[in-house]
């Protein structure tokens, strides 16, 4: 991509118009996953294993099948044969095994059979008629225990090339990277702190449970409506799991009620399709909240050791980390990402990081906002804070002293292009929050955070109408207001008002392939594609104007929504507005559209710095967050209000992760807290207002300078709050969540 077409003065970009789907969403009209109905529709329900690990000896569904309300029962035998491969290469097999158990149930909540019946109640009742005989096996849910020599083996042969000899079969991937000589670096340090940390698994906690409506005929043609972050990946995966051709399955993404990474894969969709194929009727399948917690994709839990050496002046002389992540009964825990992100904010001479991907009897982890990064940041930034405290140094000054900048060799390898970490730290230092006095019992914490961001396959199509309005078809489900951003970018290029542009999330039959709405890629990649598609349309508009004026096309330029003659020999013509050209487009060469299909590379990494004040009740260990400020580099904020929203949302999820959210497994391997009453996400009265500062250090890889903003915001909060708690209560917390019993116990241990 040419980088000489950068733009920095904007008319529409950077303004804050109403979102195009606002009216639908405040009136109840917007259609989410569970809001679809079809003639003749059946309701599905899934039978789930009550055991953490068990061989499925026999499934007898005859009573269910005989019931008059039941129209289909499916088990693993109703899906395609998908080849098994180790590591992440066999991802289709992994997904299939997760969607419907094969020989073994691998976690509490693992699907073992499903029914379709004439009503939702009938389907639920029919599940009780299915008899499953299990041979219960020993289980393991803890990451360290899952790596121990005597741990039950989840599955032999799942490890890929990377795992060193002699490791337990539950260790399925291994990562090691870094540079310099850490031992030499530790020798140079005035103070070395080595400490261990653990984080429990959390759930994305989107309020909308997974839901879909599926139709699949014996002719291999199907329709799928579902709530997803990526309907093309759903299409591809479902086709593979059902043994049909990808293009024969049309997938439409509903409005999506939150995803945060958790809706980047499929869970119930292939099951609904299999039921529909068997019953020959449309099947609607909606998860209960309990199913969402037990059987979708929470984060990994982590166990980590971090060692950092610092000189008296605050220079980090060496840093080393070992990050063990448990990601459920399948490969995929992002130990590699944790390792690569953990030290990424710093300019280090000596750094080494090791990551493990470990299987245990838990649901298959899915992405959750900067997957893997928050845990590592918690461990690393906690140790840095402790070093600052012991050496009497200001935590922002120390981070500034060690901050990565353009040209720094990143801990994960390459050198950084232009990045904005220093700018976020300078903004933090200057922010009134950082110098505001604290009340007794309060503490202030700081943390930096890093995330890569992603480009990915992207297709956008833009069509102009005769009246001069424009429609933009994008393929990335709108998870946080992205249709507004797309319309702003299209408006900027076309020079027509924002309101005259309608952005639609197209179905898989209407547009080329699109990667999932993940990796903070939507505003970056679909945005870039929208800009390019609009420019493609503008080229044709200029050509039509040139033809009408009888001058060469390179003598026409596009300015403020009009074709204007340009250059010394262009001649003197009145500008032709877009609507004037499109009004006659049918007769002057046909419809005018622009499109763009590519895999944009150059997403540009992003950094943030958070400041948080917390108060700890010394008698109960309860923590209140009293003030919070997020400072993050957005590159260029297209719609600043929604950028702020991403910052605030990331911080709020981080607060939940830090203080109260966790997967709690009993000794029996069953999930103890599968409802919102006991899985404690922050409620309105738990949080203060969350201040934001948008730093803009343009990304050289995007025409308007955009960096992804969705994920980085969840990276710093865990450590920032842990550091605030440490300053407020005088105890260093090593385990998340920092729930009141844990803090009170730490206070007692501390005397």
């Amino acid at each position: 991509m040419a980088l000489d077409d950068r733009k920095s003065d904007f008319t529409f970009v950077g303004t804050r118009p109403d979102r195009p789907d606002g009216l639908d969403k405040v009136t109840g009209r917007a259609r989410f996953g569970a809001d679809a109905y079809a003639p003749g529709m059946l309701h599905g329900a899934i039978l789930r294993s009550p055991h953490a690990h068990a061989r499925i000896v026999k499934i007898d569904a005859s009573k269910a099948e005989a019931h008059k309300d039941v129209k289909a029962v499916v088990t693993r035998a109703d899906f395609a044969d998908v080849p098994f491969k180790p590591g992440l290469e066999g991802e289709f097999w992994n997904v299939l095994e997760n969607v419907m158990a094969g020989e073994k149930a691998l976690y509490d909540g693992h699907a073992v059979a499903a029914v379709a019946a004439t009503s939702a109640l009938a389907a639920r009742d029919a599940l009780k008629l299915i008899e499953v005989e299990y041979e219960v096996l020993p289980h393991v849910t803890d990451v360290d225990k899952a790596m121990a020599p005597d741990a039950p083996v989840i599955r032999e042969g799942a490890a890929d090339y990377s795992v060193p000899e002699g490791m337990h079969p539950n260790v399925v991937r291994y990562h090691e990277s870094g540079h310099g000589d850490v031992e030499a670096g530790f020798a140079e340090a005035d103070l070395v702190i080595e400490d261990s940390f653990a984080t429990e698994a959390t759930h994305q906690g989107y309020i909308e449970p997974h839901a879909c409506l599926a139709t699949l005929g014996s002719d291999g043609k199907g329709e799928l409506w579902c709530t997803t972050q990526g309907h093309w990946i759903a299409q591809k995966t479902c086709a593979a799991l059902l043994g049909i051709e990808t293009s024969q399955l049309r997938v439409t993404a509903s409005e999506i009620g939150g995803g945060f990474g958790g809706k980047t894969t499929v869970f119930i969709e292939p099951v609904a399709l299999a039921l529909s194929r068997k019953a020959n009727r449309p099947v609607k399948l909606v998860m209960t909240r309990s199913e969402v917690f037990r059987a979708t994709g929470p984060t990994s839990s982590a166990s980590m050791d971090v060692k950092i050496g610092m000189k008296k002046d605050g220079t980090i002389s060496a840093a080393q980390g070992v990050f063990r992540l448990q990601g459920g009964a399948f490969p995929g825990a992002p130990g590699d990402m944790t390792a690569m992100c953990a030290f990424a904010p710093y300019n280090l001479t000596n750094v080494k990081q090791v990551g493990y991907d470990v299987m245990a009897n838990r649901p298959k982890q899915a992405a959750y906002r900067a997957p893997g990064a928050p845990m590592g940041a918690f461990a690393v930034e906690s140790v840095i804070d402790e070093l600052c405290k012991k050496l009497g140094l200001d935590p922002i000054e120390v981070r500034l002293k060690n901050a990565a900048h353009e040209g720094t060799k990143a801990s994960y390898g390459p050198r950084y292009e232009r990045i904005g970490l220093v700018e976020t730290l300078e903004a933090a230092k200057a922010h009134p929050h950082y110098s505001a006095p604290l009340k007794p019992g309060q503490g202030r914490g700081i943390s930096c955070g890093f995330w890569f961001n992603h480009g990915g396959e992207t297709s956008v199509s833009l069509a102009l109408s005769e009246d001069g309005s424009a429609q933009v078809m994008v393929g990335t489900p709108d998870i946080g207001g992205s249709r507004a951003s797309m319309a702003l970018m299209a408006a900027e290029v076309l020079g027509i008002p924002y309101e005259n542009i309608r952005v639609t999330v197209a179905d898989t039959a209407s547009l080329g392939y699109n990667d999932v709405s993940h990796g903070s890629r939507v505003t970056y990649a679909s945005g870039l594609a929208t800009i390019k598609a609009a420019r493609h349309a503008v080229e044709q508009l200029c050509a039509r104007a040139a033809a009408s004026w009888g001058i060469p096309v390179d003598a026409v330029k596009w300015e403020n929504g009009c074709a204007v003659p340009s250059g010394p020999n262009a001649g003197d013509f009145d500008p032709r507005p877009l609507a004037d050209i499109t009004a006659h487009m049918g007769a002057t060469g046909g419809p005018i559209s622009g499109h763009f299909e590519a895999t944009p590379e150059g997403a540009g990494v992003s950094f943030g710095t958070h400041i948080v004040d917390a108060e700890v009740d010394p008698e109960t260990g309860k923590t209140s967050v009293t003030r919070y400020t997020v400072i993050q580099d957005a590159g260029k904020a297209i719609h600043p209000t929604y950028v702020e929203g991403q910052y605030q949302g990331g911080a709020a999820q981080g607060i939940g992760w830090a203080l109260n959210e966790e997967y709690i497994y009993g000794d029996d391997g069953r999930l103890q807290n599968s409802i919102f009453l006991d899985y404690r996400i922050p409620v309105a009265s738990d949080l203060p207002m969350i201040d934001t500062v948008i730093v803009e250090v343009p990304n050289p890889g995007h025409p308007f300078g955009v960096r992804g903003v969705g994920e980085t915001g969840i990276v710093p909060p865990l450590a920032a709050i842990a550091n605030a708690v440490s300053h407020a209560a005088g105890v260093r917390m090593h385990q998340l969540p920092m729930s009141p019993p844990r803090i009170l116990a730490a206070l007692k241990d501390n005397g």
Partner: protein
Amino acid sequence: MSKFHVSTTVNGDAVEYLCDPRETLLDCLRDKLNLTGAKEGCGTGDCGACSVTVDGRLVCSCLMLGVEAEGKQIETVEGIADGDVLHPLQKKFIEHAALQCGICTPGILVAAKSLLEKNPNPTEEEARYWLAGNLCRCTGYDKIIRAVMETAEELREAS
């Protein structure tokens, strides 16, 4: 199991449906009356996405049976706007970007409207506690609370 015939009023319209006694009011609104504005986020009264008012009282429609609606006056998100004129809360939510994904929005609007009808001048703390049963996972509540507080102020000035 025999079904029950229920006559009730939803957003001012007289409606009737047949329901199994196990079906919730939320099931009936969505599956029998095609009013899908109220959402099921949890089914246990913990998320508030199914909030409606029954005889003026804010409740979770997932915690009430369909048969209990007999003779009641029910208001849902679909009834908040006055024809094509949005309620000030609805306008303010759009203006403030008080929604990202929008799944919690119907419940929060119903709950916030109920708050302002009972307490036209809530403190921020009162608004936060009133809405504590309405989970939002996208926004961190900041813009929601701002939208509610600003609407309250505007409504007070207008009256």
